[in-house]
C-alpha cells in the first residue's frame, strides 16, 4: 500500500466496514475528540478496526496502541506517525 496519509474519513470508512455504527451516533458529526466508547465501539470493535488499519496501511500497532488512543483524533495521529516512520525508515 502506498497510502501516505490516514484521515478521519479513512477511519470512519474502516469503522463502518468492520463494526458498523450504533444507532443514534452520527459519525459525520464532530467526533474527533469523542471517546470511542462513547461512539459505541468497545474493545472488540476496536480490535477489528485496528486489524483492518494494520493490514490496509501496512503498519503495526503495539498491544497498547488501541487502549491508549481513545479518540479518533489520537488514533489518526498515531497511524500517521507510524506511516511517516515507515517512510523515513
Amino acid at each position, binding site marked *: 500500500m502506498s497510502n501516505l496519509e490516514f484521515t478521519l474519513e479513512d477511519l470512519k470508512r474502516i469503522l*463502518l*466496514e468492520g463494526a*458498523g455504527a*450504533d444507532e443514534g451516533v452520527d459519525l459525520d458529526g464532530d467526533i474527533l475528540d469523542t471517546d470511542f466508547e462513547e461512539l459505541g465501539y468497545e474493545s472488540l470493535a476496536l480490535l*477489528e478496526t485496528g486489524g483492518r488499519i494494520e493490514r490496509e496501511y501496512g503498519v503495526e500497532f503495539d498491544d497498547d496502541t488501541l487502549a491508549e488512543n481513545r479518540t479518533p483524533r489520537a488514533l489518526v495521529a498515531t497511524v500517521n506517525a507510524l506511516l511517516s516512520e515507515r517512510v523515513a525508515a
Partner: protein
Amino acid sequence: MTAKVVVTGIGVATPNGLGVDDYWAATRVGRNAIGRVTRFDPEQYPSKLAGEIREFVAEDHLPSRLIPQTDRMTRLALVAADCAFTDAGVRPGDIPEFDMGVVTASTSGGFEFGQNELKKLWSQGSQYVSAYQSFAWFYAVNSGQISIRNGMRGPSGVVVSDQAGGLDAIAQARRQIRKGSKLIFSGGFDASICPWGWVAQIAGGRMTTSEDADRAYLPFDANASGYVPGEGGALLILEDAEAARGRGAENVYGEIAGYGATIDPKPGSGREPGLRRAIEAALADAGLAPGDIDVVFADAAGTPELDRIEAEAISAVFGPGRVPVTAPKTMTGRLYSGAAPVDVVAAFLSMREGLIPPTTNVELSPAYDIDLVTGAARTANVRAALVLARGQGGFNSAVVVRAAD
C-alpha cells in the same frame, strides 16, 4: 418438577415464509420453496437444490453494529428472537433478567463465516482473520447473541445433535423452567448453504442428486433419493404455565408435554434402532397413550433405509395406518437444527386451525403402512401431536405437544 411448560411466542424463518403468518400461509397450502442454489453456482457439484430463504435482508432488521460480527444463521436467529418476543407480548422489565435464559441447538455453527476466515487465513495470512472469528462461527453463538440482545441472564445452553438437536434444546429449556426459570428461549437455526458447507453436506452421503425441484426430496416415496438441505429454523418462547398466566400472556400456543431421546446402537450391532423407544418415552413422559396423538410430524429423512425405519417405528407404536403422518419439510428441505422447532410450530398451528399441512410432491410407497397426508392439507381436530427428529450418527428425539386447556 412437573410444572406445565407452555409456548407463548414464536419466531420463524423458513424458505417458504418469514414470520408465523407467512410460514403458515405457505405451509397450509403446500407451497414448495425448493429450488436451484443461488447463493453460489452449484453447477460443479452433484447436488444442486436447496431450500433458500430468498427475501431476508438482515440490515432491515438488525443494527449495523451486529452485521460484521454475525453469520447468516445468527442474523436469522436474532430476528426470529425479536419476533418471538413481540409475539409473546413480553415487554422489557416484565420478567427479572436472571429468570430468563436461552437454550438453542446448532448443527454446524456459523459455517459460512468460518469459510470466509479460513480462506483469509490460508490465502492471505493469519493477520487477516477477523476479530469476530473466535465466536462468530462457534456453536454457542446464537445463545450468546440472543441473551445479550434481550438482556437474559438466566440459564443458558447449547446442544449439538444434528437434526435431533432442535428437540433436545426444547427439552432442555423445559428442564430449566422446571428448575425455576420463568422464561426460556429455545429452538435452533442453521444456514450453511455456502460452498464449504455444501461440500461437507455432500460428504454425508445422504443428499439427493436430483435436479427436479418437485421430485427431489421424496420421503416415504418409492422414488426417494435423499434429502434437500435448507436454511432457517424457529425460536420458541417457553414459559411456566402459571407464570405465563400470571403475566397475562394472551398467546398460548400449547404445551410441551413430553420428550424422549435415544441413540441408535453402533452400526452393525444387529440391535433395533432407537426411534421406537424414543417415541414411547415421549408418550410416557406426556402421560398419553398412542391413541391420544392426532398427528405425527415425521423426521422424513428421504432415503429408503431411514424412511423404512421411521415408518416401522410409527406403525409399531400406533398400529399400521392408525395415525396421520406428515412432513411439511418437503417444502423447505431439511433445516438441520432448525427443522424440528419449525415442525413444533407447524404442530401448534395445526391445532389452531384444525388442519394438517401436507407432505408435498410425495406419493406414498406401498412398502410403508402409514397414513401419510399427501396432496393437500387435511382437516382434523388436532389436540396432541408428536414431532420426530433424527440426526446422522443415530440420534433420535421425540416431542409431544398438546393443546392448551
